């Protein structure tokens, strides 16, 4: 079974090359290929999750076997946490590719679009499955370079500016990451993550390791856009084509940012209480400040972008609380609950935020504006968009029976159980403001008929494939609630939580293979 691992990277990469070569000769080739490849990847990801076998799969690139238990080649490691991320990445990629089939007619150069999308997905899948620190950096760069190009895809003044800011700040992040990878390599003499974990575990906690940890938090924090490293996100996410915004907000900041932070700090470094506090603190900061920034926005996609910062805060405080409890040797059950809440919110956020950006794209597709003040009365004109966006808004605001309710519930209960009352209260408070700002979105976009112009009266709902993607995501917003049912949770969520909870088991298992 370990031969499926490289396909996550090879397939989209191959598709990218094929599309850029053949796409210009064969009409519709890019759409079909991209859709097909993403669907295959989707099936592969679910195949691993539902195979019932939650063991870790290792693939040695080039067949380089370890010598004396010391790995010398690059490992690709597929474990339940990676599998969990792969499901999110490839589902969202598939749906945004479908959505883009009609949507991309707003832009020119659809071959480039699909090429870049495929490269981005290849990079993301690579980040998630790789077991090598430098390899991770390479895949990260592949992802973000594709995203730079995609953010600038409209090539208008605004898009180029956003992309430029993104590149400069991304460059800073890259420097920080590369620098600390170098330091770690110098300190441990290896780049293999399990191997590094083994060496760090034996040596006592040193300043140099802490230094690297901080650099990595800043670097990947920039990719994950957590406060105060979020400066690029509102511009980039709102300027990109909407199907890409859905990918950026729904997937990229998670897979290229949060996933790496969680993976490295749980499984590679030794958990320390100080670092846990630091991570939770910046998570709280993002959560609170992000939502305040969001509620004042009138640009729909900017509003959504700021909410991404805030919602990432929820994920981080969930997992961060788990870190603090584990580092304190507290109650494991509470830690597991908190981490589960965080990861559950992560997958939920991918779905509802992806959907919200697709909704914003649908409105932009018909009205050509992102300004809430220029919308209105779309409730009757665009029923599917309206219904799905209500679903997503309810989900992000934590209204039952949608998925966001459950993940927030788990996070809040975990916070109270672990006696982090202030975090629980803040989570509730932010949730209320989130609700308020999404009621604003609903009100100004879909009701409020007076601000409607004559042009709006002739608006129709969007083409079928755009509707289809939105409906699938809306159904997922409901269906993901079921993940909490213990039988399903043990298949999807709990194995991923166990990987993080297991901390050192990661390297112990891998090195003794």
């Amino acid at each position: 079974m370990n031969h499926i691992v490289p396909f996550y990277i090879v397939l989209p990469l191959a598709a990218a090359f094929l599309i850029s070569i053949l796409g210009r000769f064969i009409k519709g080739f890019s759409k079909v290929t991209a859709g097909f490849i993403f669907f295959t990847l989707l099936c592969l990801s679910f195949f691993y999750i539902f195979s019932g076998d939650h063991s870790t799969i290792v693939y040695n690139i080039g067949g380089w076997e370890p010598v004396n238990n010391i790995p010398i080649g690059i490992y690709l490691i597929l474990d339940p946490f990676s599998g969990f991320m792969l499901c999110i990445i490839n589902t969202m990629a598939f749906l945004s590719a479908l959505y883009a089939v009609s949507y991309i007619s707003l832009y020119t150069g659809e071959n480039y679009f699909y090429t870049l999308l495929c490269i981005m997905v290849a990079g993301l899948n690579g980040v998630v499955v790789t077991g090598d620190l430098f390899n991770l950096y390479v895949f990260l760069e592949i992802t973000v370079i594709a995203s730079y190009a995609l953010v600038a895809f409209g090539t208008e003044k605004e898009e180029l500016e956003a992309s430029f800011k993104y590149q400069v700040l991304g460059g800073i992040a890259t420097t920080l990451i590369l620098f600390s990878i170098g330091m770690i390599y110098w300190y441990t003499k290896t780049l293999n993550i399990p191997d590094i974990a083994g060496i760090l575990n034996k040596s006592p906690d040193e300043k140099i390791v802490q230094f690297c940890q901080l650099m990595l938090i800043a670097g990947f924090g920039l990719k994950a856009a957590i406060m105060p490293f979020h400066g690029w996100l509102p511009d980039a996410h709102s300027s990109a084509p909407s199907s890409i915004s859905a990918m950026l907000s729904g997937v990229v900041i998670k897979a290229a940012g949060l996933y790496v932070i969680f993976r490295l700090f749980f499984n590679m470094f030794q958990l320390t209480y100080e670092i846990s506090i630091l991570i939770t603190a910046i998570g709280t900061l993002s959560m609170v400040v992000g939502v305040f920034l969001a509620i004042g926005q009138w640009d729909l996609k900017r509003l959504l972008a700021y909410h991404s910062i805030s919602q990432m805060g929820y994920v981080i405080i969930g997992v961060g609380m788990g870190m603090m409890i584990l580092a304190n040797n507290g109650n494991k059950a509470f830690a597991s609950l908190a981490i589960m809440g965080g990861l559950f919110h992560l997958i939920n956020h991918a779905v509802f935020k992806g959907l919200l950006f697709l909704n914003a794209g649908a409105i932009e597709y018909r009205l050509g504006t992102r300004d809430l003040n220029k919308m209105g009365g779309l409730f009757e004109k665009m029923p599917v968009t309206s219904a799905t966006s209500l679903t997503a808004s309810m989900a992000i605001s934590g209204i039952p029976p949608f998925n966001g309710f459950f993940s927030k519930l788990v996070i809040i209960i975990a916070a109270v159980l672990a006696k982090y009352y202030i975090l629980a209260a803040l989570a509730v408070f932010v949730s209320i403001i989130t609700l308020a700002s999404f009621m604003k979105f609903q009100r100004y976009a879909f009701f409020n008929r007076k601000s409607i112009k004559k042009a709006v009266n002739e608006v129709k709902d969007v083409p079928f494939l755009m509707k289809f993607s939105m409906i699938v995501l809306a159904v997922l917003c409901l269906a993901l609630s079921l993940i909490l049912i213990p039988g399903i949770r043990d298949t999807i969520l709990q194995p991923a939580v166990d990987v993080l909870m297991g901390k050192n088991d990661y390297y112990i298992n891998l090195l003794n293979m």
Partner: protein
Amino acid sequence: MNSVTSHIEIIILLPLITGILLFLIPDKLKLFKGISSILISAVALFFAFQTYFTEVFNGQINLFELRFLSLPDNDSLLSAVTAFTMLNIDSLARLIVLLICFFSFLILIYSIVYSNKERALKNYCSFILLTLGASVLTVFADSFLLFIFCWGFLGLTLYKLIKGYDEESSAAAKKTFIIIGASDGIMILGIAIIWKITGLYNMSEISIGTSDAIRITAFLALLIGSFTKAGAFPFHTWIPDYTKYAPASSSAYLPASLDKLLGIYFMFRICSEIFVVNQGLKLAILILGVLTIIIAVMMALVQHNYKRLLGYHAVSQVGYMIVGLGLGTVLGIAGGLFHMFNHAMYKAGLFLVAGNVEKNTGKEELDELGGLSKFMPVTYIAALIFALSISGIPPFNGFASKWMIYQGIIDFGKQPGLASNLWIIWLALAVIGSALTLASFIKFISGIFLGRIPDNTKIKEVNPAMWLPVIVLALVCLVAGVFAGKLVVPQLFGPVLGEISYTGIWDSSAIALLILFSVILGILVYLIGNLNKFRKDDSFIGGEVNRDQTGYEVTDFYKTIAEAPGFKHLYNMAEKKWFDIYDLSKGVVLKISHLFSAAHNGILSNLAFWVLAGLIFMFIFLLL
């Protein structure tokens, strides 16, 4: 499995499933949807009756032990969920469920004819049925998680039952949902704390004191939830806005009846069963209760829009229930619960009356209306009964329950403690509130039904489907009032509270007879005495001074109050939303938002500076 529990799942499942199925049927088949949902609610009502009157089963049962939901023996997928799906069935819950089904049935009958082009809702019947099913589940829920799940969902249906057709109505819908959603969020906090303290999540197993700060926080968090749902001060501000812009049937259904039932029912649960309330909290609840009564009724006095006026009364009456429940004595609780029952009856009736008037005239302001009593006699008589009920005039039901609350307050005064020593204040304010209610309903009745007709339009009585529910409700008001003491209250609340003993002599039926007798006597005196020699006097204009040359519009009633030196300022501030918790917090949040936005000017060097600052801060934190 005994017969009673096997009815419960029908009441729960049937409306929910049909509600979802009806989404699939296009709105063009409105009549079909309406009739099928009436049938469904009739079935639910029938089984609710059976459940209520055959007292076989009381206690806890799991949702998944019910007939249609029972799991296979070794179902591992769902077996762990069952820990969170306990139901608690007792006589109060069954009563509330019966009422919920009753109102759903009436409202659905009413809505089959009632419609308002501008405010017509999509999937109206679906949402009514979903509300029905979710409310029943909320009432029966024993597990806090099941409870908050359904309770939160009701906020969503409330939002879907109002339509944002212009600026104001969409703002009202938004405000409603934000306030309701906020309270639900706060409740989650309370539930989590209870879970933390006790390790339990089934309400029937929990009994905790309110001794330390953390327990009080949990209690207050849950109390906020019930206050917001029921619409008590200071979380009431969504109700007047909602009732003004929502279709009358939605207003009659949710804010007037179901939300009151659920909110007060939950308040009963937390105050009497889950928590042991201490003296300080009791005092706070009583203060909030009387404030609700007085503030809302003062606002109601000066309203010009009759639906908004009713909305303020829907708030004011909650105060009585809260005072009753806050007393904590058997009589007080019985009074509070009985008032909840009565209020649901007459206030739903009043909103339906308002709907009738609106349907026939298309007008919403009191000063555009008048003289409808000739054209709509059935509606008029029903409205009169409701108005007398809500104002606490014997022999109608509003009097009976208010009287019980007054008795409860006097009784409460015998206990030691600060809250008890102040009993005379609670009593005085409650009575004043009742008097002001009467005053404002004089305005309502005379503004709509009496006086001159503004123009010579031809108005007919509404369709039977619209006056029938109103008449049914009016009859309930009368019957519940006349037979309150001996029959209705012991039957409804005896099983919950045990023997209810009144202080003083009170027999509602005897009073009803006396009143009937005095009315007949009065008529006799009138007929015998001076059939032709009646006295001429100026028309009654709400107690205002009748000046020469001034015609008093109904809307000018109580203008003297609104323009009295102290009050004028307060009313002006209320008009500018100075006291609205929603607008206050909105202002604060937006201020903070602008503050943060100002820092985000998008200049690249600033962004890079933040990254650096963050990094340095982390170093300082960790390495020093």
